[in-house]
Structures are given as structure tokens and as C-alpha cells.
């Protein structure tokens, strides 16, 4: 889906049309078009965009050359997005104004890592719910993993404890509350995955 790369700034609440609305503030763009992928050359169509300044000395020579081709400074985050209707050219800038006519937006980001977590937090198991009647230290244990002599194994995909979070998550249909073009800011109703300062991809699903 077409959209922009952004950065999560944080959350606040504003009175939007008389209702106290929880909002996430995102810094969106401006993104520079660094490459156009075409059906003839790469076999599919997409637009490669880049966001967030970085220093020349932190850029590999290969990437430095790539940014030079687009006539722009080195950027930290490079992402390919499909589905732009507008025919962008290499070196063009896409700003927050791009979302001017949108009502709902989707946001993709890497969720906060929670480390190794048990089944109660990770999968919403109920736990035991009682501290007495012989529970000893089994209050948050998963319980039985399945049958015994049949099937003599644990089924694949059984929900168990393990690493939680730190995965790519997409949140659909966040209401666009306000665009502030002077500061490249975007206010979306509700929360967005990831920590403050992490990169997000903001997409507008309405436009195919």
C-alpha cells in the first residue's frame, strides 16, 4: 500500500470535536524517492523511499552511491512500497500532505520486545486462579500439554512460553485526527506498536 515512513514520537490526548481523544503523534516524512522499480527491469512495480538523515561517515560506499543517484543526502531507513497512483520520479519528496484526503490509516511497526514470557502473558491463559488446594507454585503454569500414550507427542503449534513481542505488527484503520504540515506531524487516534522513536510505516489503504 502507498504511504510514508515515519517515527513514533509519543502519545497524548486532545479534545477533538468536544471528545477527549487518545492520540499517537507520528513524525511522517518527508521521504525521498530513491528508486523506481519497474515491471520491465525488476519484474514488479514499486517505489523505494528513504527517511531520516544520517551522516556521510556512517554510510557504506554502496549506499552512498545509491543516495547520490537520487541526488539526496544519506538516509537511515529505506523502504519499498507498492501501489502509488502518482507517478513519482527519483529524487521527489513525499510529505505528510500526501494523507490530506485520508480518513483511516494503517500503521506497521516492530512491537516492543517483552523477552521470554509465560503462557499467561503471552497467550492469555487463565492461570490457576487459586492459591490453595495444593497449588504449591503452579499458579501460572500452562497445565497439561495433551494426551499420553496417544499421540505420544506434543502437537505442533501448541501454545507455550517463549519470546514475546519484537515482531512486525500492523494496526488497521486508525482514524486520522490531524495533519500538521509545518512540523511533518500526524495525529492518529489510538495506539501504535513500537517504542518511542522507532520507525513506522504509515499506509493509506483507501487508495488502491
Amino acid at each position, binding site marked *: 500500500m502507498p504511504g510514508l515512513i515515519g517515527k513514533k514520537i509519543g502519545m*497524548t490526548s486532545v*479534545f477533538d470535536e468536544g471528545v477527549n481523544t487518545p492520540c499517537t503523534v507520528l513524525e511522517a516524512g518527508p521521504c525521498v524517492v530513491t528508486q523506481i522499480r519497474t515491471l520491465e527491469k525488476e519484474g514488479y512495480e514499486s517505489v523505494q523511499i528513504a527517511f531520516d538523515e544520517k551522516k556521510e561517515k556512517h554510510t557504506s560506499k554502496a549506499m552512498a552511491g545509491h543516495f547520490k543517484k537520487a541526488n539526496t543526502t544519506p538516509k537511515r531507513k529505506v523502504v519499498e512500497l507498492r501501489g502509488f497512483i502518482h507517478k513519482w520520479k527519483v529524487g521527489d519528496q513525499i510529505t505528510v500532505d500526501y494523507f490530506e484526503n485520508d480518513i483511516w490509516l494503517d500503521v506497521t511497526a516492530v512491537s516492543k520486545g517483552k523477552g521470554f514470557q509465560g503462557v499467561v502473558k503471552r497467550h492469555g491463559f487463565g492461570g490457576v486462579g487459586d492459591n490453595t488446594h495444593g497449588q504449591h507454585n503452579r499458579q501460572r503454569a500452562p497445565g497439561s500439554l495433551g494426551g499420553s500414550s496417544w499421540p505420544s507427542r506434543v502437537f505442533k503449534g501448541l501454545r507455550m512460553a517463549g519470546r514475546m513481542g519484537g515482531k512486525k505488527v500492523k494496526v488497521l484503520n486508525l482514524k486520522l485526527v490531524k495533519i500538521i504540515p509545518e512540523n511533518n506531524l500526524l*495525529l492518529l487516534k489510538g495506539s501504535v506498536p513500537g517504542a518511542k522513536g522507532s520507525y513506522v510505516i504509515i499506509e493509506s489503504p483507501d487508495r488502491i
Partner: protein
Amino acid sequence: MDLIKIAENQFNIKNEFPAFKAGDTITVHYKIIEGNKERVQQYRGVVLQRHGSGMSETFTVRKMSGNIGVERIFPVNSPFINKIEVNKHGQVRRARIFYFRGLTGKKARIQERRMKYPESYDTEEKGQET
């Protein structure tokens, strides 16, 4: 943080109220919309705390409604607040007086603060600095 403030400033007009803090008795005049009618209601009680900062700051007001304690949380910058009157400046030692919930009868009284400049806290603070 600054970018959040920029975003907040696009929305709310900062309400101008007299300074008050925990322990003060205040009257909040707030608008209620019933259907398409609007009327102003008053809520008088003791401020338990001021919570948060910036545009999302709130304050809690506790009052006794008959025998039942009622607490209401207002956003400081709510567009529904018309006016706030400070009826009494209370003398308390903490910023959040949750212990006040447990007090009844004669114990549930707050000593009045003796103000050097009774108009507002601002002038009082200035007076102490100089």
C-alpha cells in the same frame, strides 16, 4: 517531547484558572450538554491531587454527597469547564492527599492556609523569592 507539545497546541486553548493545589476547596463550573441544551453545573469539593503535565493534566475533586464520597476527575484544559473558583486555600503537607479519603467527621477538616498575598499562589511564590 517538543513535537508532542506542538501537536497539543494545535488543539486546546489553555484554560486560565486561578492557581490551586491539593487541599484547596474549589468550585468547578462545568457545562453539561443534554440533548441540544447546554447548562452549567457546579461541583464543589476538596482537590485531592493534580496529575500529569502539559495539555493532559488533570485534577481530582472530592466532595461528600450526603454520606457518600464522590470523586470527579477533570482535565485542566477541558473545553467543558467554564470557570473555577477557589473557595478556600487548605494547609496540607503533601501534593496528593489520598489519606483524606479515610477521614470522617471532625478529622476530615483541613486547616486554612494563611496567605501572604491572598490573591493567588503566584504572587505568594514571588514574595518568597525576593
